[in-house]
């Protein structure tokens, strides 16, 4: 009798484990799903009441804030564009991004300092530093924009080269079919030359601008920087002109291929009709 009870008890325990196992597993899953409360740091507004500001001083601070906000927005937009670059190394991208981020942080610190200045002399110095810091902004922004445009141009060169290979295959097929491909071949050759030059010009624009450093008030260096940026800009425009020409070559080839196809189809139809 005791043995039977013993067996019944053990079986009951085992069955109980089987029954409770899913609930136990569910409880484990539920325990993982814990909510994380994120406490955002409170944004404190530093209201400086230790100095009395004149209307002119308030205007100066307002202009400073406007300029800092304008630069920050431009740099943030540039940083977004830099992240979308496709044909540069991650290290190159990170280098530009670091320069931009550093400038944004510097501007944020300057703005916070101006808002917290407790004496008029310091306030005056800080507002003047907005102008001096423009040297960095005036270089970093075009450097980044030139790099982004050059990257786009190299991307387009790559895409057009891929399409060019396909067009070449189609031209060869048309030639094997007996079509006159002289004009198409000429367009393809011109396209290849334009793409080669576009690639060269795009790379030159980055070479001319990427290594420039702020002039820090040195007028000779400032002139050299401006000249280098203009050269880079000219390179970009030349590359763009090349790409527009290459795009026209593509249209020329595609149109000609369409005519060959239409002629071939018409000939096939005529032959079939005559045979019948």
């Amino acid at each position, binding site marked *: 009798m005791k043995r039977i009870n013993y067996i019944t008890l053990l079986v009951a325990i085992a069955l109980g484990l089987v029954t409770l*196992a899913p609930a136990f597993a569910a409880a484990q899953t539920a325990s993982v799903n814990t909510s994380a409360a994120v406490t955002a740091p409170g944004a404190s507004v530093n209201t400086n009441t230790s100095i009395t500001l004149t209307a002119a001083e308030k205007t100066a601070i307002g202009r400073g804030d406007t300029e800092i906000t304008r630069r920050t927005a431009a740099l943030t937009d540039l940083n977004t564009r830099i992240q979308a670059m496709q044909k540069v190394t991650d290290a190159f991208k990170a280098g530009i991004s670091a320069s931009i981020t550093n400038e944004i942080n510097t501007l944020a610190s300057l703005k916070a300092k101006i808002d917290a200045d407790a004496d008029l002399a310091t306030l005056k110095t800080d507002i003047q530093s907005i102008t001096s810091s423009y040297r960095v902004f005036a270089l970093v922004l075009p450097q980044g924009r030139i790099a982004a445009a050059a990257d786009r141009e190299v991307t387009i060169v790559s895409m057009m080269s891929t399409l060019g290979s396909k067009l070449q295959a189609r031209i060869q097929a048309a030639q094997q079919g007996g079509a006159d491909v002289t004009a198409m071949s000429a367009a393809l050759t011109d396209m290849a030359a334009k793409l080669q030059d576009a690639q060269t010009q795009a790379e030159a624009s980055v070479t001319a601008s990427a290594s420039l450093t702020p002039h820090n008030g040195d007028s000779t260096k400032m002139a050299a920087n401006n000249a280098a940026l203009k050269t880079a800009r000219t390179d970009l425009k030349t590359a763009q002109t090349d790409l527009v020409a290459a795009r026209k070559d593509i249209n020329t080839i595609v149109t000609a291929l369409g005519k060959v196809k239409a002629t071939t189809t018409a000939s096939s139809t005529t032959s079939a009709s005559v045979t019948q």
Partner: protein
Amino acid sequence: MAKWIIGIIIVVLLAGALWYSGVLGNMGMTASQTATTTPQTATTTQQAVAQPENGMSANNDASDAAISQDSAAIDTQMQGLNSDNANVDSSMNDKQTAQSY
């Protein structure tokens, strides 16, 4: 003899309980998932090769439709280039807000 039978039943039931709760099941799942993951990775790689970036068609597709698709993708990038070059001009002609004190 009865003890042996009881013991076997308990072991079987406990094994069943563990499998049902996922402890043993996960061991089997791990191998199954690994086998499943490998083909998925291979599939992803094949898709990356077959679907070039920026809306271009497959590299080995020279059909009319593919050429049309590629041309459209290039035109999109050309429009982007116009925007990029306009931004270059803007950055080089930038003038700061006059500061005064």
